[in-house]
């Protein structure tokens, strides 16, 4: 059987990913991620000496448009989907003093 991730390791990853997992979720992901990562260790078999990594698939020259101003999205439209706004701004909980 593959090793589960430790709960501490799941908590470390969840904090990086900004996910407030429940205890049930932590236990589930510890087991499932352990199993998936065990399988993913197949990549350790690859002979990667002098193999450059592929980060993106180039489709030819970088495509750029002419650098001319165009009308932007109206301000009101741009923030229309926000859950909380005030005076045309996004409103969020207090930032200073947050842990």
């Amino acid at each position, binding site marked *: 059987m593959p090793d589960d991730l430790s709960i501490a390791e799941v908590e470390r990853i969840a904090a990086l990913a*900004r996910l407030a997992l429940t205890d049930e979720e932590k236990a589930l992901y510890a087991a499932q991620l352990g199993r998936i990562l065990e*399988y993913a260790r197949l*990549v350790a078999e690859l002979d990667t000496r002098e193999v450059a990594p592929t980060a993106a698939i180039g489709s030819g020259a970088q495509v750029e448009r002419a650098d001319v101003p165009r009308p932007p999205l109206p301000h009101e439209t741009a923030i229309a989907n926000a859950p909380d706004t005030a005076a045309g701004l996004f409103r969020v909980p207090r930032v200073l003093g947050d842990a």
Partner: protein
Amino acid sequence: MPDLHALSAREVRDGVARGHFSAVDVCQSCLARIDALEASVHAFISIDRTGAIARAETLDRRTAKTRELPLAGVPVVIKDNLCTAGTKTTAGSRILGDFVPPYDATSVARLTAAGAIVLGKANCDEFAMGSSTEHSAFGPSRNPWDTTRAPGGSSGGSAVAVAAGFAPLALGSDTGGSIRQPAAFCGVVGLKPTYGRVSRYGLIAFASSFDQVGPFARSAADAALVLGIMAGADPADSTCASHAVPRYEAALTGDVRGLKIGVPRAMLEHGVDSDVAACFESALDALRERGAAVRDIQLPHGRYGIPVYYLLATAEASANLARYDGVRYGFRAESTTLTGMYERTRDEGFGAEVKRRIMLGTYALSAGYYDAFYRRAQQGRTLIRRDYDEAFDAVDIVALPTTPTAAFKLGERLDDPLQMYLADVFTVGAPLAGLPALSVPCGVTGERLPVGLQLIGRSFDEETLLRTADAYERVRGAMPLPGASSPSR
């Protein structure tokens, strides 16, 4: 009058242009079909009946202009991860449950400018992460061939809509197989274009070095028609290539004499269902009879496709989905602190599979694991690309079954994510290498479930894929219609 909902896109366009029937007639026929069958298959997240009829009426009034539109009056269904201005776009997620985009995706805008009528938004796995639609926050879609089975995913609703006769065309997106796998499961044509062939502006991002928008249709000819309209440079997407767009329909000559098809035999040795293998071999025989040469080839790193793909795609997803923080759009869970608001919003807003993939991708990118997982997977991607480069020195097309099995039962793989991932073994190769790939139905299993033949082509050579699929369709003849969707016919 014929069953208008059963016509091809080209038949609809020609009939509307010649005045044999109106765009409203076609729209009403499709909506009636939806009314009769949607409850049993759940293809849609939202249906826009009044908007669709209104747009069809507008087309019918402007007869001179309508006659020149290449998709005049053709109903189309759009996967719900493609933005539609003024129409809710959820990506199958609770976190975007009320999101109304202020603009259209370029692919959608090009279809509507060509005269297509959007009927509604198709169900999909949340943020396109899944192979069954069971990870949609709005419940699964059902396969019209057997409603106890999955339609495939993530673009399952789009595939169901085309298979069930709701529309002749649908748009989906493909990251590791999300167009081709549901096309195979539902018995329709699905095309993932070359990376950079179609604009992704307005596609809700999952894994940006893989994602492509592509069509579902009931024939290669209709797929060729719609690809020609969608493809080509877009000032709003710098990853969209400026390569000239060929006349794809002109490639459909029926002639595959001298075409070289390569089959990576070693990949077929394990886990392929015997009925799927038999359908695949008989499709190859049919192409041989039309003059194609079929030979075995090697893709030596094929077995690393799944781990390489899942490490890279989840890493990219973990970065792309960082934007869902409850501030600028989407769902927010209340908390007294900013960090608490972020963490609770994301835990409550995302479903189990999306969180699983964010966790996996974050892990692969985190200090101490980056070199062993993420970087090594990127190197594996290079090796897989080289395999294809070498294969295409010798052949014009690589052929595989689209999936190792036909449609699986709903619920069967839900508790075993790794088992769900392994089902993508034949579809992850093309997006890892950035290549175009197409799935065309090639028969049914003993249980009357469709099987897909996958054709993978050279970069920007969609023409050869479409020509080969069309030539095969001429031998195969019409696919039988799904049993579950026959009552109103």
